[in-house]
């Protein structure tokens, strides 16, 4: 399935809608704009913001979901980051945790390096990939009203493996920077789950 044109969804409206009333949700954000979007929606101890390791967000979320099956997990990333670790979709699909959600903010661009087009601008469907990788639910979201139903499912720990490709407008927004101190972010996240630093 190829979408002819980008949707008019704005990422800074989509992400707060996705993260509102988040309850027990643990969130991993892919480097670049998804980290800034999550920060803009409100910093949270249960957010782990990536600033590097491009391609690793889904596998980090998979590790979390397997280790904490009683908490719902969201990986919030972008199309370029996800494409760099595409094999992670198959790894997640094969293991099939029922508490893992992946939401890809797809602007068909590499935002950090100058808005160069990604493969999703050239006919590649991430949602179809996820479907082929044994995901239970795969949505292509182009309207704000579709975020709510995805959010409700996302907060379940037994609704299956879920993937949403959220088509968004290509826009360069002011960066809302989370802490770049990875050790701080890690320890804060662990403390939120009741684990103290060594």
């Amino acid at each position, binding site marked *: 399935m190829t979408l002819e044109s980008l949707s008019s969804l704005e990422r800074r409206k989509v992400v707060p809608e996705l993260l509102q009333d988040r309850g027990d949700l643990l969130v991993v954000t892919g480097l670049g704009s998804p980290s800034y979007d999550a920060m803009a929606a409100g910093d949270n101890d249960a957010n782990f913001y990536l*600033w*590097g390791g491009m*391609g690793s967000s889904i596998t980090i979320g998979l590790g979390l979901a397997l280790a904490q099956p009683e908490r719902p997990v969201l990986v919030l990333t972008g199309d370029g980051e996800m*494409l760099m670790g*595409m094999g992670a979709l198959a790894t997640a699909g094969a293991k099939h945790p029922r508490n893992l959600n992946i939401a890809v903010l797809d602007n068909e661009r590499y935002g950090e*390096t100058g808005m160069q087009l990604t493969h999703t601008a050239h006919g590649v469907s991430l949602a179809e990939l996820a479907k082929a990788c044994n995901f239970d639910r795969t949505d292509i979201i182009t309207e704000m009203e579709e975020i709510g139903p995805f959010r409700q499912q996302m907060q379940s720990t037994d609704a299956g493996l879920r993937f949403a490709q959220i088509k968004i407008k290509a826009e360069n927004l002011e960066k809302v920077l989370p802490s770049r101190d990875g050790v701080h972010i890690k320890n804060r996240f662990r403390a939120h789950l009741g684990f103290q630093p060594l």
Partner: protein
Amino acid sequence: MNPDHPNAEWSAVMFDILRDAGIGLFTHVPDHGNDFLIALAMEHNDTRTLLLTSEEEGVAICAGADLVGKRAILCMQSSGVGNCPNYLSLAKGANFPILMMITMRGDYGEQNPWQYPMGEAVDSILETMGVLNFKVERRDELEKATLAAVDASGKGQKPAAIVLSQKFLGAKGF
């Protein structure tokens, strides 16, 4: 293409050297440092570009091109060097003369602590995998380093990288 792009002048010089050497395929993961070079390669009739999802794909594509007598280059940011070592077995195991153009993060003037781990590892990864390292820290080093890498890989049959420091490129601010 924007002629006021900060990399326009040297990218054109580098592109001409690469094209003259018969490099016809520019594989790349986008970066600020290589985007004018890639735009030139997209525009010119002698050259084609190929967008990668992850840098190691470019190592294999360069090897495939070499198998059929063509020359290709892998253009990437330094963080992508970390994705390449296993595929660089092709360079060591079958002596494929892989050519790379690496734009540095995590060196001179870097402001993002997350860029340092890979920035600091580039030299040792290249050395470990047997890739010659031709550094550019000043504008007057660009032609020589590019020619040296092109000749080392094309004539010398050695894997080689042109490595552009942030001292030359400028560091990214926030």
